[in-house]
């Protein structure tokens, strides 16, 4: 990863403020009327704010139901936000005053790499057509011959050959497909790529290839990444800064090394303790307690309190604020 120290506050490329996503999961109206059930809302993402500097990799880590993929999709605009703002390079993404052309330009800047390379490539399209699509649609390159040349170039960039353009996705292994997906993302010449669990469907040796490739590309092209993963080790390896999510809220944010080596929030601690590590053979660490509660019906106060070994009465009542990169009453009070 780029070693140059970056001050994210100086010139953040991406600013996310107060991001919210609420899903209405209540029964159909008729049924609600009949049974008198209340309207039910899942707060999948609640008040999430972060910013990412140019060339930086910011990672969001969390278990299932933490809202990390939801955030990714809201940032790129695939999912409507229930609240909050996303600003890229100073422009708010769905600013109504922004013109058509500008919006297209904005769209070019953001790309995404998806989790499952088997589902993210249209099986009926040739690789060439897949990679060329963003160029064509966004008008990055217009001339057919130039497009073809560019596709070959991009395939070369991700470690494939130009000849692969005429093949279909099923002729490739999982790792190669993820390379194609990366080539497609790069084809729009973006500045910012959201990577949603880009390696979790891959084998470790292939994961290493892809992670290395992404790091190389970032160095060469000066890309900015939002990196979503459930795997702390991968996150630690890739990210400059890490945000930890629990039930739709950021519980801790900080530089990668600090956060992994000196976790502050009890949940972060638990997560790190739970990661099986090659260097810890069969030790008897106390496993984490309980499971993630159903987001439809989250616990009161601090959502983590039923699993938290340090919970006090206050945690049951009061939702802690994110202060100084951590959202915990007891940390805030200096007790941990």
């Amino acid at each position, binding site marked *: 990863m780029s070693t140059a120290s970056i001050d994210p506050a100086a010139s953040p490329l991406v600013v996310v403020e107060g991001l919210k996503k609420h899903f209405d999961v209540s029964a159909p109206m008729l049924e609600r009327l009949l049974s008198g059930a209340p309207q039910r809302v899942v707060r999948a993402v609640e008040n999430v704010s972060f910013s990412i500097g140019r060339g930086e990799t910011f990672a969001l880590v969390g278990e299932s139901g933490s809202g990390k993929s939801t955030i990714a999709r809201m940032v790129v605009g695939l999912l409507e936000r229930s609240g909050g703002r996303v600003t890229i390079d100073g422009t708010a993404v769905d600013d109504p005053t922004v013109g058509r052309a500008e919006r297209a330009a904005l*769209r070019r800047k953001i790309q995404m790499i998806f989790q499952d390379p088997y589902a993210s490539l249209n099986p009926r399209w040739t690789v060439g057509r897949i990679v060329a*699509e963003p160029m064509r649609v966004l008008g990055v390159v217009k001339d057919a011959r130039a497009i073809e040349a560019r596709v070959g170039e991009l395939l070369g960039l991700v470690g494939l050959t130009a000849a692969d353009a005429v093949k279909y996705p099923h002729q490739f292994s999982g790792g190669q497909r993820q390379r194609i997906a990366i080539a497609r993302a790069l084809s729009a010449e973006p500045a910012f790529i959201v990577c949603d669990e880009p390696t979790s469907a891959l084998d470790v040796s292939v994961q290493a290839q892809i992670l290395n490739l992404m790091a190389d590309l970032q160095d060469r092209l000066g890309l900015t990444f939002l990196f979503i993963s459930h795997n702390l080790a991968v996150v630690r390896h890739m990210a400059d800064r890490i945000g930890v999510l629990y039930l739709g809220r950021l519980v801790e944010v900080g530089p990668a090394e600090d956060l992994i080596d000196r976790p502050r929030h009890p949940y972060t601690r638990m997560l790190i303790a739970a990661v099986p590590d090659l260097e810890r053979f069969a030790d008897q660490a106390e496993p984490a307690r309980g499971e993630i509660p159903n987001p439809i019906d989250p616990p009161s106060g601090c959502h983590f309190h039923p699993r938290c070994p340090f919970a006090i009465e206050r945690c049951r009542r009061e939702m802690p604020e994110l202060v100084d990169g951590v959202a915990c009453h007891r940390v805030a009070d200096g007790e941990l």
Partner: protein
Amino acid sequence: MSLRDDREGFGSVWNRRWRAFADSHLLYSFGRSKLVMVAAVFAVVVIGAALAAPLIAPTNPLDLASLDLMDARIPPMWMEGGDPRFVIGTDDQGRDLLSALLYGAQVSIGVSLCAVGLAILLGVGLGLVSGYFGGIFDTLIMRAADVQLTFPAILTALLVNGAARAVLGDQRLQGGEFWVLVVSIGLAFWVQYARTVRASTLQERHKDYVQAARLIGVPAWKIMFGHVLPNVLGPVTVIATINLALAIITEATLSFLGVGLPPTHPSLGTLVRIGNDFLMSGEWWIVFFPGLVLAGLALSVNILGDWLRDALNPKLR
């Protein structure tokens, strides 16, 4: 459409596709079952002969002037009283049964193909819209499908037929029976496609390749037809094949109930209906041969559909 198609020319593309096909499971499983091969040969022969009817039929059964009532009910040529002009005999109007059969098969296959085509057009279109957009479209289309399901195929066909007769009047219907049948049967079949395509579309819509297209701002209709459609066509092919057989039978049944094609322009079904009157009279060939071709055609298409379903189902490999 593939990036290099234009430079490589069709030859090599098709060549490659052919190699891929020859290598595929489809062809392999085809070669493995004798039954499937026999069915395919039968279907190809019947369909080919039907399409080529004007070229190969000994007479033109639609040319009424060529009929001679005195030739009526001549048995097949190998039987006593047979006439070498009429290989498998004649019907009660003196029509050469072989020619009638060829033209009849042409009509039946035409009706069925068009009906299935219409059903696909309707069903796939509505299914795509329903699955992709959801919401009110979905509700409306699926409720319509529910209502449609309340009227099983044969009832729908009777309804449409009756309505067409009433709206168009018999006179204007004349010659339009073909299209009335097509619409009757087509309308009865669309639900299956709509439901299947909707279900697949719901799945595909959430796949990341669709998301990737949305991300770069590809318009919805382009995603639906360019991305989603090719990926939901697999089950459609299978249903279409099986429906083709069903359409052939439905057409015959409608003819049996007297709302099919007129005897002057008979389909296989009409021929069977007419021949049915001769089932007990000893002039068995009038019903036997059309019945045989009808059942054989439906059977072989069904066998092909069965095979296609198994061969296209990756889980069964």
